[in-house]
């Protein structure tokens, strides 16, 4: 909302400048975003008459004019404007004049001809952006309705007075702030001002539907409980006077014609939207306020045809809708140049009804914005009276005709009891009742006097936002100033924060991955359908489990990610495109899916906490030694990172199994099972999946479910003391059939070795010319140890023989060599 200081001071007497007013409003909850300064000084710019216009001898587009500046001989002025003509009254910047943009006019030669000044356009005078021609002063002063000063007089008095306009962010609950009068009331209270005499007169102006009755029927009196109509005849439709156009320009409203401009003027001044119908276009000479019928259509003022629904409240005549109530008028009944009689509408429409209609039509206007928030129901008669007064001043020939009023003013002015103690309890301000009462009275609340601990407060009609005691507490607090609220000592004694298991698990999951040298990313929740499908398949989630937005803004962001992989791949692609060679990123965040549920009860989607990590590029972040530099991260290098993460997360004996699902590179992906549940997936992504993100290099992916960590009970395994007796080491290499896995052999060895086994580690895998056909070699470094003494050679040999026999029995393997 724009508040011009000149308009404000017409309403309220305050002795404060614009910054002080802005500060007061901001501190009262009307945030002033900025102050715009308008108007300018025009030293040396005078009213002049163009006497002659001749073609410039050396330039086709320029004219050489003789101009009477009121002082001595005519001046010779070069002018480039196409609209310059003899007899025109224009603004002449004489030599030495200073224009608003700071330009100083000098005597000059333009293409060989002397120019003794400059004829000014509207833009050069900082009036508007118009620069197509010079400003015609006769047209500018209302087509001659106002007398022009003598030739040679300064133009200053013709120009808009200097002004300042406050740009105010009006809170949603303060529709009164969408009118100059409401803001004036706030300024008056804040700065101890008083209404001007004019303001008092306007606020007490009465209007009644006297004379002939204009028929108004409220068919939906819930949607429209109160409707005033005033017919006015013998009107003419023409441009507004300058002052009215200037005023509207200050608040950002385009001038249309005098009648429409007056309705807009009062919308801004009183916050009451008005509408003027061409009376002749109202069939049957009546209005009905009703819901639209299914199938009804209306072409609105903006020229668009709109299909109406039952949600929309309309103004209709006998035959058809003529306006969207509280939103926009119809094109067919608007005032035009041929209008001679009008019907002014001043109504109170129910906020939710207007909002539903506006939403249904996707249309929001200055009027609907005010009705939705709640117009002052008591302002109606004053608005009609002021419209009539202003119109008659502009068009003394107009004649007030039939009028109608239907329904009752929906004024609910509740009386609320305010306890002094409540103010203190909520705000910490220890005010006495008299102070609180004074603050409220300044805001025109009616406060019964006398009480000490409680106040009975009657809420004025324009403050529909105040419904509860606590609302009054806020009124008092903001009037007194939040600055006055004391700062209490921080009571933290006995306060203790608990860290939830969830918080701790998520934090350690992040920490453990950061420690692996992977950088944390925060990626988008909203992804495309295609991305969501691709990454859901990776973990075996069906497309039906995806959660979708009902009103996405774009195709790129229409599905909630089932896991954080899409955003990570977007990030990989982005970084590769920027020329970054290696990317390692992870995210801890939710995946969204509809879980399986047999019951049809409405429910929220599952938000599954996960960790996902991607890695691509060189093994080392930097290596200058070619022996290391060439290495790229492969499945096993990545698996090492993920294993270390699992270990730091205290996953006991994770079991890696081969896993296949669309999107993974076949034969290069695994699932990780701990205890009895799957907790993670890892592997290389398939090139076709990566190409969907424009990624052409191999990418390693790891996804872990964090839910098992949240529910797992912390079990602390018994501490094993480091053995004091030296281990005996053996290296055993076996030939086993190709299809047998390391894990299978290892398990057999562990079982056969029994309790003396201290450690077992695979150190070599080989198959080639040295291995029998169909066989591969697995070599293990094994350590045996007794906790209480040194093992003897024969003891070790017995265990070893047992292990060799077990591998032979279970996997048809045999010892390759012994070192």
């Amino acid at each position, binding site marked *: 909302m724009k508040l011009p200081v000149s308009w404000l001071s017409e309403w309220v007497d305050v002795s404060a400048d614009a910054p002080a007013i802005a500060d007061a409003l901001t501190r009262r909850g009307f945030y002033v975003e900025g102050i715009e300064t308008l108007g300018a000084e025009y030293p040396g710019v005078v009213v002049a008459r163009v006497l002659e216009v001749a073609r410039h001898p050396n330039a086709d587009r320029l004219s050489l004019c003789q101009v009477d500046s009121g002082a001595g001989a005519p001046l010779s002025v070069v002018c480039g404007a196409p609209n310059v003509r003899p007899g025109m009254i224009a603004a002449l910047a004489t030599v030495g004049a200073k224009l608003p943009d700071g330009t100083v006019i000098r005597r000059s030669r333009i293409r060989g001809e002397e120019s003794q000044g400059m004829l000014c356009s509207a833009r050069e005078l900082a009036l508007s952006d118009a620069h197509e021609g010079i400003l015609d002063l006769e047209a500018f002063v209302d087509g001659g309705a106002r007398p022009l000063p003598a030739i040679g007089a300064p133009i200053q008095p013709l120009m808009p007075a200097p002004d300042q306009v406050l740009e105010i962010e009006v809170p949603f609950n303060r529709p009164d702030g969408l009118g100059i009068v409401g803001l004036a009331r706030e300024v008056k209270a804040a700065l101890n001002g008083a209404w001007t005499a004019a303001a008092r007169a306007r606020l007490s102006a009465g209007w009644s539907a006297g004379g002939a009755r204009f028929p108004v029927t409220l068919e939906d009196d819930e949607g429209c409980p109160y409707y005033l109509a005033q017919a006015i005849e013998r009107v003419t439709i023409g441009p507004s006077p300058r002052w009215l156009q200037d005023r509207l320009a200050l608040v950002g409203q385009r001038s249309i014609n005098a009648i429409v401009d007056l309705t807009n003027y009062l919308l801004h001044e009183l916050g009451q939207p008005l509408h003027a119908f061409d009376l002749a276009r109202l069939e049957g000479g009546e209005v009905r306020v009703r819901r639209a019928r299914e199938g009804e259509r209306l072409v609105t003022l903006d020229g668009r045809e709109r299909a109406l629904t039952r949600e929309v409240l309309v103004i209709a005549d006998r035959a058809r809708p003529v306006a969207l109530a509280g939103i926009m008028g119809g094109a067919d009944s608007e005032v035009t140049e041929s209008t001679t009689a009008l019907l002014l509408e001043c109504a109170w429409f129910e906020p939710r009804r207007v909002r539903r209609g506006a939403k249904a039509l996707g249309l929001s206007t200055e009027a609907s914005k005010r009705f939705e928030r709640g117009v002052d129901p008591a302002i109606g008669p004053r608005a009609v009276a002021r419209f009539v007064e202003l119109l008659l001043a502009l068009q003394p020939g107009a004649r007030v005709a039939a009028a109608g009023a239907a329904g009752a003013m929906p004024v609910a002015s509740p009386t609320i009891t305010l306890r002094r103690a409540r103010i203190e309890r909520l705000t910490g301000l220890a005010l006495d009742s008299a102070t609180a009462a004074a603050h409220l009275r300044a805001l025109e609340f009616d406060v019964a006097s006398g009480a000490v601990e409680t106040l009975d407060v009657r809420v004025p009609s324009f403050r529909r936002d105040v419904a509860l005691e606590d609302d009054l507490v806020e009124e008092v607090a903001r009037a007194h100033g939040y600055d006055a609220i004391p700062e209490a000592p921080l009571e*933290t004694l006995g306060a203790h924060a608990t860290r939830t298991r969830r918080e701790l698990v998520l934090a350690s999951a992040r920490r453990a991955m950061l420690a692996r040298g992977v950088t944390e990313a925060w990626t988008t929740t909203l992804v495309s359908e295609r991305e969501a499908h691709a990454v859901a398949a990776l973990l075996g989630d069906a497309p039906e489990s995806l959660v979708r937005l009902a009103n996405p803004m774009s195709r790129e962001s229409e599905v*909630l990610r089932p896991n954080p992989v899409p955003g990570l791949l977007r990030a990989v692609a982005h970084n590769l495109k920027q020329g970054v060679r290696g990317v390692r990123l992870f995210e801890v965040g939710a995946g969204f899916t509809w879980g399986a549920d047999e019951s049809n009860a409405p429910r929220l989607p599952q938000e599954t906490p996960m960790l996902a990590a991607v890695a691509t590029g060189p093994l080392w972040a930097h290596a200058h*030694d070619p022996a290391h530099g060439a290495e790229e991260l492969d499945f096993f290098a990545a698996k090492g990172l993920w294993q270390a993460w699992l270990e730091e997360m205290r996953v006991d004996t994770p079991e890696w199994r081969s896993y296949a699902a669309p999107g993974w590179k076949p034969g290069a992906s695994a699932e990780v099972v701990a205890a009895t549940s799957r907790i993670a997936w890892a592997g290389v992504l398939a090139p076709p999946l990566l190409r969907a993100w424009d990624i052409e290099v191999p990418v390693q992916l790891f996804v872990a479910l964090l839910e098992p960590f949240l529910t797992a009970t912390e079990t602390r395994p018994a501490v094993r003391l480091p053995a004091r007796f030296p281990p005996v080491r053996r290296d055993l290499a076996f030939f086993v059939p190709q299809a047998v896995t390391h894990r299978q052999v290892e398990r057999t060895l562990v079982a056969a070795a029994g309790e003396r086994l201290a450690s077992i580690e695979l150190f070599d895998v080989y198959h080639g010319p040295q291995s029998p056909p169909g066989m591969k070699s697995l070599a293990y470094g094994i350590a045996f140890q007794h906790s209480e003494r040194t093992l003897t050679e024969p003891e070790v040999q017995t265990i070893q023989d047992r292990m060799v026999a077990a591998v032979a029995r279970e996997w048809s393997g045999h010892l390759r060599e012994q070192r």
Partner: protein
Amino acid sequence: MSAAVLGRDSLPEAWETGPYWQLTPECLMVRDELAAADPDAAGFFARAAQGLLHAPDLRELEARELTLLGRERGLVTRALGGLGALPVDERKRRGRSLNVLKRALGELAAQRRATLEAEGEVRDALDVTLPGLEPWVGHAHVLAQVRDELLDLFHGLGYSQYASPEVEWDAWNFGKLNFPPDHPARDAHDTYFVTPQGGVAATEPLVMRTHTSPGWVRAMEELEPPLRLVFPGRVYRAEQVDASHMDQFHQMDGLFVAERVSMADLKATLNLFARRLVSRDVRTRLIPIYFPFVEPGCQLDVACAACGGRGALADGARCPVCKGSGWSELLGAGMVHPNVFRAVGYDPERVTGFAFGIGLERTAMARLGISEIRLFLENDVRFLEQF
């Protein structure tokens, strides 16, 4: 064998690569001492000393040392071994000089070894300015760092963390927070709606939460007062993305409910936050603002960092950051609205409470002095690795 074998000629001439005067004064003293008693030994010593002192490298030094002092075949060792065959007087005289010779040569060899080793170290020195074999370093996301810092602060004040869903029922996101249906304040929350499962229209719409405040409702529905909680998380608004708007961003609400909590407590808490976050002597102001879920509501402003709160830059031009107001908005807050308490079954006569909402991006941007919000979810490693 005779001890007289020891003479200058016992050693290769090539050992004498320099003139006598290159011998150190200590060597000359030894030589003179020997010369008096045993001229042959003095000649031997002179060549041997030169041979050691000018040994070109460690390997040659070792070879020469072995020739002279080797435990079995060393010339000096052998000469000492041959002493037994000599008459007593001769044995004493020669024994003394041989021992002088042996000790002096031992010292010379050690001296030369030290010199050669030092030279070798210099020659084989590493260029320590070469880069190391660098492992990857993980960087926590800058918003995570801001969030964790705030969590630390509020944990210290006794606030625990409470998690609530990102997909929320309309009633929890709006209704119970005193946004009735068709309330204009919903216009400030451009809302993403979620299609219910199977597309079946539910009685209650599903939304992407537009703020973290639904967490209060869930917490109060679950727990009894007193409460001190913080609610960090991601929120969503259906807005066009540009340099200062994202459709996904992050907030951290805080809630303190007890029997007697007032705006005076709120003010103290917010000022502590501002002092910790911005600077110890930051100027703040509390001004009224409207949110449906608080009454009274307020906004905490801090003095604009760009102009120091003056509203104008050093050259007098209007400050472009605060647009001349001298203040910048830090967060919104207020006393929990009685309708919110009623919606969760708390009695607003029995308890009061305050709440605040901090924007993580806003906080991070103010601190980092950046104005491009899209950086946070773009995950450009050149950005992330700066933190």
